[in-house]
């Protein structure tokens, strides 16, 4: 009962001194709003990571020809994987699919008087299984297409839009480089590739045709996509593949790999590395705002304790115990920070909505954000409210009333 009365009085007190209350709240409002925005960005980014991860496949290992650091797909010019590598990887225990493919980026494409550039992949029929991505229209690359080195292709959505607009591309003939290909299917839409580029700006042709007719790489393979049965064995199988390749490529123990292996865990690391810096920066801003806001509150509360000495003395004279005074001032500080937290939450939500309109990144508003706003407001209120409250509670009534 007493606490309820003191609580309502604390909020009434805020209303009596609107300007001062608002100034006390500004830091908290900024801090909480920033926190809400960060949380939304983080959750949005996590969603993106999950989406990319699903594109990549949680049970996939990509084998890139050529060593060095991680970057985009390996081009045919650096292809050094062999048919023997392919067979040996296939026989590693737990490996379900090995889909080899050749890659060339930014190849010129022409249809009638339309030009564009696209990534071209030479693939085996199992490419569709390995990427879980077939055609929405027409046919994918068949075994026969590969055996007969047919000049047929399957095009991605972006290529279709660029070259055919709304027309039907099936049966049309387009030029990849200087070679004529007949369109026999349209790939399922996929959006972003594991590397983050447009995965629909893609043309898939038979592996053999790519190697011999288009990319002049009859002997070596640029990339392989390995699908394992159980994602939890990803690491173990990766290591086995690495051993197989090192042995096949006759690498001595002091030589570096002349290939790269990538799996979902590394992808996550890569993406997080980029967005992490921004998050740390924003978190720093939020943290600093909350600390500065808390110090402002503590400062004003300390001044307020001096200003209200008479009130404190009077309250003690009429029966308030030290802990009642302590409680009153802590509640007043909490009233400031919690109200500030609510305003901050609203400002943060508005900020997210504006960002959504400006950048198109969907706003993620969660109950965690609300809980966080309340939690931090509460903690700041307690931490920076206790010191002034203790000063108030310790006042001697006779001194205070003088």
């Amino acid at each position, binding site marked *: *009962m*007493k606490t309820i*009365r*003191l609580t309502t*009085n604390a909020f009434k007190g805020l209303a*009596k*001194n609107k300007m001062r209350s608002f100034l006390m709240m500004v830091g908290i409002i900024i801090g909480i709003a920033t926190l809400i925005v960060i949380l939304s960005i983080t959750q949005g980014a996590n969603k993106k990571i999950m989406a990319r991860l699903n594109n990549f496949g949680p049970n996939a290992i990509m084998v890139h020809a050529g060593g060095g650091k991680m970057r985009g797909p390996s081009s045919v010019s650096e292809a050094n994987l062999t048919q023997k590598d392919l067979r040996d990887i296939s026989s590693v225990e737990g490996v379900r699919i090995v889909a080899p493919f050749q890659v060339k980026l930014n190849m010129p494409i022409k249809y009638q008087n339309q030009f564009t550039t696209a990534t071209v992949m030479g693939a085996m029929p199992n490419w569709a299984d390995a990427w879980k991505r077939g055609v929405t229209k027409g046919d994918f690359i068949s075994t026969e297409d590969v055996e007969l080195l047919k000049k047929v292709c399957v095009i991605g959505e972006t290529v279709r839009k660029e070259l055919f607009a709304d027309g039907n591309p099936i049966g049309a003939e387009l030029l990849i480089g200087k070679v004529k290909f007949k369109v026999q299917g349209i790939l399922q839409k996929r959006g972003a590739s594991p590397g983050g580029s447009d995965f629909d700006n893609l043309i898939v042709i038979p592996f053999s045709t790519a190697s011999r007719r288009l990319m002049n790489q009859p002997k070596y393979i640029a990339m392989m996509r390995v699908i394992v049965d159980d994602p939890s064995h990803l690491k173990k199988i990766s290591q086995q593949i690495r051993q197989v390749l090192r042995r096949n490529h006759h690498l001595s123990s002091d030589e570096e790999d002349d290939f790269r292996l990538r799996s979902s865990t590394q992808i996550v690391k890569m993406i997080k590395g980029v967005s992490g810096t921004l998050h740390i920066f924003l978190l720093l801003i939020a943290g600093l705002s909350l600390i500065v806001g808390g110090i402002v509150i503590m400062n004003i509360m300390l001044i307020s304790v001096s200003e209200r000495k*008479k*009130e404190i*003395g*009077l*309250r*003690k*004279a*009429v*029966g*308030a*115990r*030290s*802990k*009642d005074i302590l409680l009153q001032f802590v509640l007043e500080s909490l009233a400031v920070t919690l109200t500030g937290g609510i305003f901050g939450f609203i400002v943060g939500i508005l900020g997210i909505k504006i960002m959504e309109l400006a950048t198109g990144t969907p706003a993620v508003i969660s109950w965690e954000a609300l809980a966080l706003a309340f939690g931090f407001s509460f903690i700041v209120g307690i931490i920076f409210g206790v010191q002034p409250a203790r000063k108030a509670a310790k006042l*001697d*009534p*006779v001194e205070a*009333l003088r």
Partner: protein
Amino acid sequence: MNKLIRAKDITQIYSKNGSVMVKALQDVSLEIERGEFTAIMGASGSGKSTLMNILGCLARPTSGEYFLDGENVNNLSDDDLAKIRNRKIGFVFQQFHLLPRTDALENVELPLLYSERSDISKLAQHALEAVGLADRIHHQPSELSGGQQQRVAIARALVNDPEIILADEPTGNLDSRAGLEVIAVFQRLHAEGKTVILVTHAQEIAEHAHRIIRIKDGKIAGDEGVQNPLNARGELENLPGETEVMP
């Protein structure tokens, strides 16, 4: 049978600036019966305020014993003293000490906030009616005259139905009419059975009480009954001009 207030050999020593010792009270002993109207008189610096703080349980004496309602107050904790102030003592101060930007009703409710009472606004309203301010309950202190503010303060002192009303120079900030109005309230409370202790430096105010205890240099210099206490209400009627209607 037991006296309401029994103070024995009360001595209060302050250390000023850590070194100089000031004896504010020296071996003061006094007894006050239930229902008495007593004035404590003295010049400023005489120790009368110190005595009031001790009698009001706001401070503990350096030495000596103080029994309030038979209870030895010296042995009580700060929290217990707060409880006694809440239940048994109603304070009235020279500067009123009303909370600003807070209406009369909420000011009067203040002591009840620290009690276990639940019907606080009703009690506060009754107390305001008892001092003739029924029509001013939602006025803020800044909208009230000095006399009215002091009567709000008296209502606040009364609201918990305490044994003792302890008033420290209650008329010090008031003109003579408002001061007499306040004294009239005390005389009525006394008539209704309350114990009233009035601390003042003014002889003409003290003579409204039935007993005057004089303090000088921290010691009791005199303690006598008043033969014919002045009647504040009668004096008000003899003053020219309108007097506020009192219940």
